[in-house]
């Protein structure tokens, strides 16, 4: 089976006065039909820019400088804005952390959802409306037919995010990119949304990239995980591989700092230092200044290479026996 999405060697850089920001610097990934890929990393690691690049939404001073993005075998890099518009909103959808990035505050929900359908397909308004009601009920909005005539501000934050997700589903896209859509929500509401999303991926076969900084969300939702650090994927594999037997020292550190992995009341194991500035990265491995395993070899940038288990970008990856210790 060929993947829905295949990204190879993607580089998206921002040309700012302070210098070139290599926000995405050689990212490769694939997503299959019905699969959820968790893209994890701390703020500034390049997750959103990766998502925006796939959506063709990167603006000046940023630009895709290298690499390829194929959706169902079709190359997207280099498309005209007109061609992008026919794909975006139809085959490719994005859900943002703030649902108001998708929803128009001055239009009723039904107006927006019906337009989202008719912009890409010749269907009657009535058929489009029926599809909107179906999508709203699929994301768990009670009495959707009545709620359709409301304005976005009449919904709570969690409801609004569900409306944004329902809108994303309308045209049965091939790929949905979800950029931290539950980060601002309460755990109860987050769980409701994750529940609906999980069902949808299974029922409709839509492929998904779920962007988050929260490893615990990924563990419950994703089939595979890619961990980003300073614009690069540093480790990727199945969720079990990455979370149960991490190879990269950064992933090991991240997992170790989750409170439930530590003995109650004891100091948490922590990664020293700070997340790096993207305009002033160290030479070689970007994690070097914070890495307990760093040595001279790490002055040379490591490649993403197979280990026993996941792929890791590291000269001295953890090996299985140690991870157990």
């Amino acid at each position: 089976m060929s993947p829905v999405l295949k990204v190879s060697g993607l580089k998206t850089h921002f040309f700012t006065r302070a210098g070139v920001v290599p926000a995405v610097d050689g990212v490769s990934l694939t997503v299959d039909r019905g699969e959820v890929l968790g893209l994890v990393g701390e703020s500034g690691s390049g997750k959103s820019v990766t998502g925006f690049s796939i959506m063709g939404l990167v603006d000046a001073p940023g630009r895709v400088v290298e690499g390829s993005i194929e959706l169902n075998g079709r190359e997207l890099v280099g498309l005209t804005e007109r061609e992008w518009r026919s794909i975006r909103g139809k085959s490719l959808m994005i859900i943002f952390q703030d649902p108001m990035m998708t929803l128009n505050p001055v239009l009723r929900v039904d107006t927006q959802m019906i337009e989202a359908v008719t912009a890409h397909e010749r269907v009657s308004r009535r058929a489009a409306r029926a599809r909107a009601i179906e999508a709203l009920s699929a994301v768990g909005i009670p009495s959707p037919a009545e709620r359709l005539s409301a304005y976005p501000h009449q919904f709570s934050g969690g409801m609004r995010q569900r409306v944004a997700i329902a809108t994303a589903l309308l045209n049965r896209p091939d790929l949905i990119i979800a950029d931290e859509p539950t980060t601002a929500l309460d755990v109860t509401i987050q769980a409701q949304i994750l529940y609906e999303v999980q069902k949808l991926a299974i029922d409709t076969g839509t492929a998904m990239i779920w962007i988050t900084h929260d490893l615990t969300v990924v563990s419950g939702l994703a089939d595979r995980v890619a961990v980003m650090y300073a614009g690069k994927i540093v480790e990727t594999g199945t969720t079990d591989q990455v979370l149960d037997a991490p190879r990269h020292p950064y992933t090991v550190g991240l997992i170790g700092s989750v409170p439930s992995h530590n003995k109650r009341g004891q100091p948490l194991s922590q990664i020293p230092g700070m997340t790096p500035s993207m305009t002033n990265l160290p030479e070689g491995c970007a994690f070097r200044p914070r890495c307990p395993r760093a040595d001279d070899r790490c002055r040379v940038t490591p490649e993403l290479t197979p280990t026993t288990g996941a792929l890791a970008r590291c000269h001295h990856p953890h090996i299985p026996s140690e991870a157990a210790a």
Partner: protein
Amino acid sequence: MSEPILALRNVSKRFVKSLDAAERMANLVGAGLADEVVHAVDGVSLEIATGEVVGLVGESGCGKSTLGRVVAGIHPASEGEMLFRGKRLAEMNAAERHEAALRVQMIFQDPMSALNPRMRVAEIIGEAPRFHGIVPRSELSATVDDIMLRVGLDPAYKRRYPHQFSGGQRQRINIARALAVNPDFLVCDESVAALDVSIQAQVINLFMRLREELSLTYLFISHDLGVVEHICDRVVIMYLGRMVEMASTEELFARANHPYTQALLAEVPRLDQRKRTFAAIKGEIPSPLHPPPGCHFHPRCPHAFDRCRAERPALREVAPGHISACHLNDAAKHSTGTSL
């Protein structure tokens, strides 16, 4: 439990939401709208022992920050009384009240918005001790250095401005500023929520170390149950302004009594759960402007029965030191014939 450093007795805080311009216009044509009252905190009683870490948990808008602000003396309570070291605030003279206010400091979620961007770090940290005359002028600079070292900041950076620091460092500046007046009690309002995972662990460790070194007491407000379980001794669960359950951390995580707490615990995403099926509690968080009658939780509660819709359940002890407000506890008591 040792002597409480702080006690709340039936504390409530109400806010009046005044009509906006459009609503006043509507009233001119006879809409008859009145100011609305938000019962942000509704009759909370709580004692916190010296050296204890109490977690305060609940969904957005349930009144955690408001309760924290009342404890920190930022908001006066609308009702009820607060005692500091056994003495009622209402009975204190101005000097005592001022002293008590300094002893309780609050640390907010957003490290940047809490810091004045035009002040240097040394001024931010040194301002309060200078203003309150806690440290002689000649020793101020050395004191600032000490505090910076204590929270893991290099005193060499004391002449920098807040924007020249990372998020985690800014939160350390906030903590340093609070520590500068030698508080006994810190109210931490989502103090690690805005930080990156790796930095969050550093700041949690800092809080735990400071607790040891300075014998601090904490009210730790957080929506992150993983963090709360890790560092708190006792946990208070709030729902729409009311305390619905309180127990030691171990007891609460092992034997939650209230249906709301049980649901919250079930939703916590955990690292060891793979491809779990999310089965969420139904329904939205109701508006605190119009809380449901009886038990506030009844529209979302899988066990609700008639009485829940009419009568507010009282907090009752369900095990030593474990209280919960749910009518099911009465039903259980009656059916088994035991009493507490």
